[in-house]
């Protein structure tokens, strides 16, 4: 923002003051977090690892001192409710803390995915998106704050995650995932979460995960419905096994065209985070060869059995045709007759332009 440029109107001044106050709050929060971290690290050096503070919970000092089970004292304290779970426990937490998960899309689905993965203690979270935060995203993209409107979604999302859990490594990929960069980016991670909003990206991410042999947690939401499944995991199908031929473009609606109730992608995103955590920590039965279908209107969730891997699949079948070389030249937008980005699309025209700014 140009500091010399004073807004013309009283409302403009008020709103700028509000915005600056909010930014100040973010900076103050960050300073507090860093100070707390510094204090704890310093006292850790002088007082040792474990100090009781008189409350029912022991005050655990951070640091890199790894105890027998591989978790640091700070991790044991932070994730204690996870560790109490017989089905998850120390082993689950340890595996999760050693995993790296790529979240493609920092929107309605990606928001809860990234927030929960950060809170739960994934080792490394990568976030890919090239969008900027808009005010009409905030009803569902709960990771972003008003103060980040106009700024990069990846940065906003990564900062939100850092504020929740400073133990997690966050990698910002502030670019659109494309056939030219996808192999390079995806290869750095163990698990991929598809939280995108368009058909060509879904085919591209699935093909890329098959080529690099990564499990893919795929979620989608529109209107009042959501769908969730895990592709290319434990010998299960990939996206192309299920959908070898793309649907007609008239069937490819977007949230920006058809609307979406904010909490619907939230529900699906939370379930995506759950599936990613299950895969990372090797617990339970991931949703492979099954699909979860959520209908918000009737409050119904049904899980159905879907086909297995197809021998004829051009991505993962016996005579797969897609190679790392051909992938990089594959025109996914042409294949699906659908754009990867809705930038440059005509505005909805629901309200006058002046009201959108």
């Amino acid at each position, binding site marked *: 923002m140009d500091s010399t440029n004073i807004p013309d109107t009283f409302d403009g001044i008020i709103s700028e003051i509000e915005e600056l106050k909010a930014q100040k709050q973010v900076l103050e929060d960050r300073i507090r977090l860093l100070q707390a971290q510094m204090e704890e690290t310093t006292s850790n050096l002088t007082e040792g690892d474990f100090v009781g503070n008189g409350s029912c919970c022991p005050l655990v000092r951070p640091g890199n001192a790894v105890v027998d089970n591989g978790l640091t004292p700070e991790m044991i304290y932070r994730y204690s409710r996870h560790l109490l779970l017989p089905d998850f426990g120390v082993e689950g937490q340890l595996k999760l803390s050693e995993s790296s998960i790529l979240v493609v*899309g920092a*929107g*309605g*689905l*990606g928001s809860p995915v990234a927030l929960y993965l950060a809170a739960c203690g994934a080792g490394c979270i990568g976030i890919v998106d090239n969008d900027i935060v808009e005010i009409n995203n905030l009803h569902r993209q709960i990771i972003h704050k008003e103060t980040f409107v106009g700024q990069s979604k990846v940065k906003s999302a990564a900062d939100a995650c850092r504020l929740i859990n400073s133990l997690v490594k966050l990698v910002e990929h502030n670019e659109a995932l494309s056939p030219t960069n996808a192999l390079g980016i995806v290869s750095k991670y163990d698990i991929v979460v598809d*939280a*995108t*909003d*368009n*058909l060509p990206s*879904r085919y591209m991410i699935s093909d890329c995960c098959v080529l690099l042999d990564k499990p893919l947690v795929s*979620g*989608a*939401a*529109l*209107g009042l*419905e*959501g*769908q969730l499944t895990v592709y290319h995991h434990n010998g299960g199908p990939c996206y192309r096994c*299920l*959908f*070898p*031929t*793309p*649907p*007609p473009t*008239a*069937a*490819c*609606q*977007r*949230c920006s065209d*058809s609307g*979406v109730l904010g909490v619907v*992608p939230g529900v*699906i995103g939370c379930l995506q985070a759950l599936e990613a955590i299950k895969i990372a920590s090797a617990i339970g039965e991931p949703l492979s060869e099954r*699909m979860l*279908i959520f*209908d918000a209107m*009737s409050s119904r969730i*049904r*899980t*159905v*059995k*879907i*086909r297995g891997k197809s021998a004829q699949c051009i991505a993962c079948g016996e005579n797969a045709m897609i190679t790392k070389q051909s992938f990089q030249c594959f025109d996914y937008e042409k294949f699906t007759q659908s754009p990867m980005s809705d930038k440059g699309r005509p505005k909805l025209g629901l309200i006058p332009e002046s009201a959108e700014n």
Partner: protein
Amino acid sequence: MHLTLEFGGGLELLCKSVKIHEVDVDTKSGEDKLTMKDLLSWIQANVIKERPEMFMKGDSVRPGVLVLVNDCDWELSGNLDTTLEEKDVVVFISTLHGG
């Protein structure tokens, strides 16, 4: 034969936004069984009210539609040749891409 048909993922818009249809489908004369192929043409004639091309392509459903017979992908039960039974639940779901 009594069947429950469900449309989701936007396909309900092709049948007046009604998601669940309780229907009675007559089997062909002289036959006591009904296949998915028969059911699709019956649905096309009796349930789909607009844009039929958004439901079918050729003699099957259009790409991007999952068909579930009793919560199981019809690819696992024979696709168009799947034989239906009394009180079966057949679900048609258009795949979603939004997020």
